[in-house]
């Protein structure tokens, strides 16, 4: 599935890119405009993505992807979901809370005990906030509290 989905998605991206690129001022060969190079890149992208998609659907490269067992797949999906949740929540709940929840949840689902997960969450959230916000002056969002 993945072996077909990835080239297909990239083909769609390339096609969208091409439609946007042709709207930019192309210029002439002697005075290339802002759209000159993007159009060349876009045509190249569409051609190679099309070829890759075609070969994936003809089954030429269907081998090689190792199927994951249920538990492994769940661990990866939870980690990705936690990353997305962190990015969504950061502006609203602030860095310390988001970092704590992120570390605790991911650790727990990777197989750590609740106590380990919670303690590591507190320490890593406080530690990284201290280093980045206090020492390095990064304006990490603090949240409503």
């Amino acid at each position, binding site marked *: 599935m993945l072996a077909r989905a990835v080239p297909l998605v990239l083909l769609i991206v390339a096609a969208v890119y091409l439609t946007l690129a042709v709207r930019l001022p192309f210029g002439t060969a002697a005075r290339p405009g*802002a759209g000159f*190079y*993007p159009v060349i*890149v876009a045509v190249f992208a569409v051609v190679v993505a099309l070829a890759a998609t075609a070969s994936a659907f003809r089954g030429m490269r269907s081998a090689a*992807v190792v199927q994951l067992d249920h538990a492994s797949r769940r661990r990866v999906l939870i980690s990705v979901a936690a*990353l997305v949740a962190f990015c969504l929540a950061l502006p609203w709940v602030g860095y310390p809370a988001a970092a704590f929840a992120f570390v605790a949840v991911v650790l727990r689902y990777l*197989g750590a005990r609740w106590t380990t997960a919670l303690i590591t969450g507190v320490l*890593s959230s406080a530690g990284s906030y201290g280093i980045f916000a206090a020492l390095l002056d990064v304006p990490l969002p603090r949240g409503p509290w």
Partner: protein
Amino acid sequence: MGPLEGLAYGFSVALMPTNLFACFVGVLVGTIVGVLPGIGPVGAMALLLPSTFAMHPATALIMLAGIYYGAMYGGSTTSILVNVPGEAGSVVTLLDGYQMTRRGRAGAALTVAAVGSFVAGTVGVIGIMLAAGWLADVAIQFGPPEYFAITLAGLLLLSRLSGGSILNAFVMVALGLALGTVGMDSISALRRFTFGSVQLAQGIELVPVIMGIYGVAEVLLLAEEGIAKTQIAKVKLRELLPTREEWRRSTMPIARGSVVGFLTGLVPGPAAVLSTFISYTLEKKMSKTPEKFGTGMIEGVAGPEASNNGATAGAMVPLLSLGIPFSPATAILLGALVVHGLQPGPLMISQRPEVFWGFVASMYIGNLMLLILNLPLVGLFVSVLRLPQHILATLVLLLCLVGAFSLSNSFLDLWVLVVFGVFGYALRKLSVDPSPLVVALVLGPMMEKTLRQALFLTQGSVIDLVARPLSGTIVFLAAAALFGPPLVRLARSKRFAKPIPRGSSASD
């Protein structure tokens, strides 16, 4: 400044306390990420890049490069003791290295690997001194057509060499080039592909892309396994000394590996990995007992371990003398210099000698530090492997998140990180090498600018562009390297009717 004068000046820069400390931190971090499987030097360099913004450019370069070559030392330790490659450049080492461990010669394997790396590192630095200066002298005559030809040739070669199918590599290049056009057009100031976003007008930053592909994606691979216990062989200090016979057998492989590595490093491609395969094959061919390879031959450790270090040195030459990075690691080094307004290229060696020579001298010092760090203290680094993997993996994810945000305090960078993390993970599952994407993202803007300038110069004639002796030769050589081998194979195989099935190995 001649090489000797320059080197003396360089040592005066590299021996300054700040730079010595930066060098130490770099090689220490490099060794640790080298030892740890799953977290490679590129991810670590991307993570630490923001912390170098406040440093002098020479200091930044010294520290980041230290991570790069330090990882080549550390990677061998895990390969030899655990039978898992610490990083990609040490995959070959485990073939014979782990077999040596099983026969009780782990100490000898570690020592030969470290000494081989040291010799190759030192030979490599001498190579940089000679080659970079010479290449910079040549490159001063280069105009936009030549730079365009070099970037084009580099991307073609990289696609050919990156392993796996060339079609996949081209898709990665196309994607990287397209991403490179997002943002303000440097010539007409027109906003392209920004969808009205102010943040996107600045372009897509390299660092969150790299952190995603080389940091997040690798942690996701670790997450598949959950909690895994590693079995680590124990090494006693007095077992570290190889026998006289082992030394004798390692000498020539180390010498050959150093040269092979440096030369491979000059060519665009995944040099560190590729050089180890070349060196291993070479040693097997030179050996009187090739059938014994894979059973614990010390030659199979000495050669590849020397070559991957030589390759990291060789890769610095195109970066320092042309200003063109051909690998994700050197792309980060370029990023570190550009942030300080420094444009590596033929003029940098003469205009900013403290950066070039300070960096070269620091590589001598760094390699010496690594030899000391990796031999007597090998036990200490091995204990890093006893850290619980799942905790480490989670903390690396958190560091990637906070690191990506801290680059320019932008939420967009966070999303770039996550999207490329997931994308990089998918690529790993499909065995597609993402490095052409990263290199194309860096080279893309350079390629566009030089193409437009060159066409302006030649009044729009593509023929004039390729007909210039220098640019024409470069494009011709690249085309020959790209299409020569498959054509020769096609002619030999005499199966013109059927397409040739593509292998997925790096030796393809």
